């Protein structure tokens, strides 16, 4: 059914269609619309789920962990401070191999207070063992939620579906809401092999000695590796059934490109317009969108960027002391490759500053002009 809905509500529909059984959430702007809509779905019976109105995000994640441990499908949504508060439990959930799915709306972290779009909240959690998917549109957000449950339940690791604050969460777009029957066929009920069950009593999370711990972390990494093929399989299946697929990365007009712009989230949409303008003028500029950040699509970016002279990464985040996080990870994936591009790292759009077509053009122009970046970190929208 095609309809016009708010980005946050697209996530709610994805959760409802995924027949989530336990939702545990705490309000924080700009996530709150997600759980408010879910609350309505629960109240009117469209979704049969327990909605736990917990007293903090830390408790939201803890109760998702408890619910998932007995084999219930669990979901939460948060942003910024809330995600940061969950931090220790993000490690817990992945170490406990629980396929929890969480929506995170990318919002800046205090201090000072800023409620607008910034990727530092989710990127700060990149070491926690969660899969991370960055969405460009409301449609993609809805589809990714449904796919995430299937992927997570297949490899026993939790997933974070990420969307931009306000640009995506609070704007209205046409969205095709898949019908229940087809989603049910695509996503069967969650049946874990191991769970809390008095009929099969086991202990989970006991003290583990140095003799055994490495092998558990190795297994987690192996699952993250396996996730790469599972993501493509699940996405391929989704494409067949629903006609939409996203894969781990997307390349746009990169043939013979002399410069490829690398983006994530809604700035990708704006960039497509700019790329088209450059191409119309005969300039060979392309775009690479990163959707899957964890697992990092190393093989794919190496393949797509081989022989490309220059790459300009736009990071809507900064890890102070080193730079833009997508840029750092990209450089890391490319560092041993022969025929690798010169990478220019740009910080723009922090704390909800619009990344305009002008900013993107400036990024492209500067990159074309320089053989190599004059600085490791470039600030095209800084007011000087």
């Amino acid at each position, binding site marked *: 059914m095609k309809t016009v809905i708010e980005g946050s509500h697209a996530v709610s529909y994805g959760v409802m269609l995924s027949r989530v059984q336990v939702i545990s959430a705490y309000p924080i702007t700009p996530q709150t619309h997600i759980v408010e809509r879910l609350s309505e779905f629960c109240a009117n019976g469209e979704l*049969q789920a327990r909605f736990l109105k917990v007293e903090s995000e830390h408790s939201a994640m803890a109760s998702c962990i408890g619910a998932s441990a007995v084999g219930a499908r669990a979901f939460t949504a948060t942003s910024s401070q809330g995600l940061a508060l969950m931090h220790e439990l993000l490690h817990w959930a992945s170490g406990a191999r629980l396929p929890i799915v969480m929506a995170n709306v990318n919002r800046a972290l205090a201090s000072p207070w800023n409620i607008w779009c910034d990727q530092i909240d989710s990127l700060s959690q990149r070491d926690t063992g969660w899969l991370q998917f960055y969405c460009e549109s409301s449609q993609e957000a809805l589809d990714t939620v449904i796919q995430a449950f299937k992927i997570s339940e297949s490899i026993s690791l939790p997933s974070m579906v990420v969307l931009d604050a306000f640009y995506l969460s609070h704007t209205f777009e046409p969205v095709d809401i898949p019908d229940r029957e087809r989603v049910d066929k695509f996503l069967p009920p969650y049946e874990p092999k191991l769970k809390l069950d008095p009929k099969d009593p086991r*202990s989970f999370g006991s003290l583990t000695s140095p003799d055994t711990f490495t092998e558990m972390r190795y297994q987690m990494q192996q699952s993250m590796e396996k996730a790469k093929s599972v993501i493509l399989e699940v996405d391929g299946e989704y494409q067949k059934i629903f006609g939409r697929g996203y894969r781990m990365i997307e390349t746009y007009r990169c043939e013979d490109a002399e410069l490829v712009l690398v983006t994530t989230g809604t700035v990708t949409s704006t960039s497509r317009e700019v790329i088209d303008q450059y191409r119309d003028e005969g300039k060979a500029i392309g775009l690479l969108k990163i959707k899957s950040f964890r697992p990092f699509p190393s093989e794919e970016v190496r393949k797509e960027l081989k022989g490309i002279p220059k790459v300009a990464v736009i990071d809507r985040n900064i890890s102070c002391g080193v730079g833009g996080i997508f840029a750092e990870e990209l450089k890391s994936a490319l560092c041993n490759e022969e025929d690798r591009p010169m990478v220019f790292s740009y910080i723009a759009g922090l704390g909800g500053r619009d990344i305009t077509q002008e900013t993107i053009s400036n990024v492209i122009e500067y990159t074309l002009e320089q053989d190599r970046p004059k600085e490791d970190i470039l600030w095209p929208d800084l007011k000087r």
Partner: protein
Amino acid sequence: MSSQEMKEMERRFPEEEYFMSGHLACSGCGATIGMRYALKALGEETIVVIPACCWSMIAGVFPYSSLKVPVYHVAFETAASTATGVKAGLEMKGDATTTVLAWAGDGGTFDIGLQALSGAAERNEDFIYVCYDNEAYMNTGVQRSSATPFLTWTTTTPAHQAKEEAKKNIMEIMAAHRIPYAATASVAYPEDFFNKIKKAKEIKGLKFIHILSTCPTGWRLPTQLSIKAARLAVLTRIFPLYEIAYGEKYTLSVKPEFHPVEEYLKIQGRFSHLTDSEIEVIQENVEKAWVRLVKKAEA
């Protein structure tokens, strides 16, 4: 106790054990007694949620477990929040009979776990929360918690600057949440504890049981005096046994004759620094608190 009395006591409890030997507790640990009788009362359809505390170790090192019921080890402050999720998950899976038991120490209840406990209590989540209270952070080496009594020695409240604050009154906090059932217990009164757990099992909503759990290691007490100390705590009225229904109805479980607090304090190394006048102050505080409690029970 005569062998006749022991035989009678054993008959009062089901024979089935859910707690096996080979666990890692210290000699004389009160928390092991607590778990043993709690599980006898609850039976095999129980899931235990254990946050960071001594029981994280006592339960056993991977791949062994000393308990015959499912155990979920969880982060320090999350006993009540995880138990909330476990119960919700069970309900959604159609299981209305399995009991969820949150089993936490005093640190994970009075201090770091208080928010989650308050949240679960306010929402009246349906599980049993047992705080086994050894009155300090024993697992990490005897540091003070807000459950540490007034003037007690701990490693962070050394003898020359022993704990200046009174023990936090967790029962009054739980009463203020008006949960259906709250009770105190002592490892020296296993039948009382057993009965309270059984009672809690039949009630829907949040049930909170605060059991005084001797720690010979941290209390600097000879291990063979573990039960004696837990009994003296009740007899001296330092740790009264009572129940609170819906935050209003108080019922005393035991009405001991007068025993001076000194009987309890003098057998423990953690109180060996106390002066006579300090012991008098403790005696006065205990009497004031007892009178208040008795008044509430008579109301």
